[in-house]
């Protein structure tokens, strides 16, 4: 059933008793053409693009927990494209383009809305770096402008004049958006299921089966499932799954904390970054402040962060906006980031034939549509699309790294 104003009215008439389930819950078949490991945004997206763009519908998505319950549920929903390498910018801009059409493509409201992002600058080096970013982005035709202090004051009337590191300027990037993270996973799941993809939850992959140098399937908590091609999209567990295939990946898994306050009335329009503290915050649709920060000081799979990092992140918030000093926070958690050594994604085939990987390289929510689409393209055609030619695994051997770490303002 397609969602529309008419389906809403029709279902309102019978008191919402007859809504159909958004996707099936099938038992795994013995064999598929393609298996995608990981039922988050990236994995479900890859399955949908395989079905829609390449006509490959005999696909299973294997998820060890519940759908969208991994790092799709732990990010802070921000979508931005301020990058600096000539390969990264078109990739992220394509993602923005796909995001804009996503609700229509999926017939599912992912609640995308453009918010804009304001980065508070607190040092001379911060200002010159922002200028460099603004110039780079203008090459790619992006609206990324320096805000003088009086203009900043007009837009954000209540930031502090007495911050420990005084605010001397700001940079504004309009095309930065937010989307509802759950809706992205659910939308892709529903659309993929409709095209015949089997989404199998509570099915943990425990081994990758191979014959010679080719994959033949996976061993799972629900038995052996055969497949000729396997795509891996497991944010926060890339090393663990790749190890099953005998592959070591150039990444480490780091926690990145986020916090959510009790809801308050609307105060913040944009997403804010505080340059001197490397933290960022915004107000969600529900009115909660969402605050995120730097990665924790050591790699970990524990899904929680250290309190001194939480404190530092909060310090940056109340230094710039003392008005939030008495806010109460409801939740604090850590998402797991598979961070590559150049902070750029890896979407690539591997030394094992038929085994493909989609690693976010840093926070991966923003790249969900483009990474999933390119991953699907790679699985279907067995060669990288021009957009991701430079995102291959071999760049760490050839030395053609796409260094983005330390480039964006909040890292």
């Amino acid at each position: 059933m397609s969602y529309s104003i008419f389906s809403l009215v029709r279902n309102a008439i019978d008191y919402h008793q007859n809504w159909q389930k958004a996707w099936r819950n099938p038992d795994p078949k013995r064999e598929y053409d393609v298996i995608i490991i990981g039922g988050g945004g990236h994995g479900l997206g890859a399955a949908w693009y395989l079905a829609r763009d390449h006509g490959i519908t005999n696909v299973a998505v294997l998820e060890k927990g519940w759908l969208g319950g991994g790092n799709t549920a732990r990010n802070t929903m921000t979508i931005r494209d301020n990058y600096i390498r000539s390969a990264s910018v078109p990739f992220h801009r394509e993602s923005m383009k796909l995001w804009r059409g996503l609700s229509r493509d999926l017939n599912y409201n992912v609640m995308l809305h453009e918010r804009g992002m304001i980065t508070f600058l607190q040092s001379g080096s911060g200002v010159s770096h922002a200028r460099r970013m603004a110039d780079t982005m203008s090459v790619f035709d992006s609206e990324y402008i320096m805000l003088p202090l009086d203009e900043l004051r007009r837009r954000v009337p209540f930031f502090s004049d007495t911050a420990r590191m005084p605010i001397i300027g700001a940079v504004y990037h309009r095309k930065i958006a937010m989307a509802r993270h759950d809706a992205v996973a659910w939308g892709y799941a529903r659309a993929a299921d409709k095209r015949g993809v089997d989404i199998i939850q509570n099915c943990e992959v425990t081994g990758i089966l191979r014959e010679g140098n080719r994959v033949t399937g996976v061993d799972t908590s629900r038995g052996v499932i055969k497949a000729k091609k396997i795509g891996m999209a497991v944010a926060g567990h890339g090393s663990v799954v790749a190890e099953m295939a005998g592959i070591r990946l150039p990444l480490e898994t780091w926690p990145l904390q986020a916090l959510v306050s009790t809801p308050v009335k609307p105060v913040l329009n944009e997403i804010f970054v505080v340059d001197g503290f490397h933290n960022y915050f915004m107000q969600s649709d529900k009115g909660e402040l969402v605050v995120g920060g730097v990665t924790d000081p050591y790699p970990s799979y524990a899904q929680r962060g250290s309190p001194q990092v939480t404190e530092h992140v909060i310090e940056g918030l109340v230094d710039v906006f003392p008005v939030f000093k008495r806010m109460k926070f409801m939740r604090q958690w850590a998402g797991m980031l598979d961070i590559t050594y150049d902070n750029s994604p890896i979407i690539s085939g591997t030394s094992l034939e038929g085994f493909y990987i989609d690693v976010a390289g840093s926070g991966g929510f923003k790249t969900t549509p483009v990474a999933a689409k390119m991953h699907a393209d790679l699985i279907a055609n067995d060669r990288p699309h021009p957009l991701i030619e430079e995102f291959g695994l071999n760049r760490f051997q050839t030395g053609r790294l796409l260094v983005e770490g330390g480039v964006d303002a909040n890292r």
Partner: protein
Amino acid sequence: MLLIPCPWCGARNEDEFLNGGEADKRRPANPVQAGSEEWYRYLYTPANTKGWLRERWWHVRGCRRWFKVDRNTHTHEIKQVEEADQWR
């Protein structure tokens, strides 16, 4: 929050330390002859273990000495593996 057992100072708060990554990694024995494959393995392929991992830590805001501990990267349990005597 970790309480990291420094062999000299005892268990101290984690923000006194810096993580030095995986312990016992070996540089290529012959750096000139090592090819890109060997350097790739040394530089870019950490174990990134989920579970027990032997790591080097630096007590930078304390006695400023390096030492090794075993840390479980999943549960955050931590075990001292070196005695101060070893170094005398």
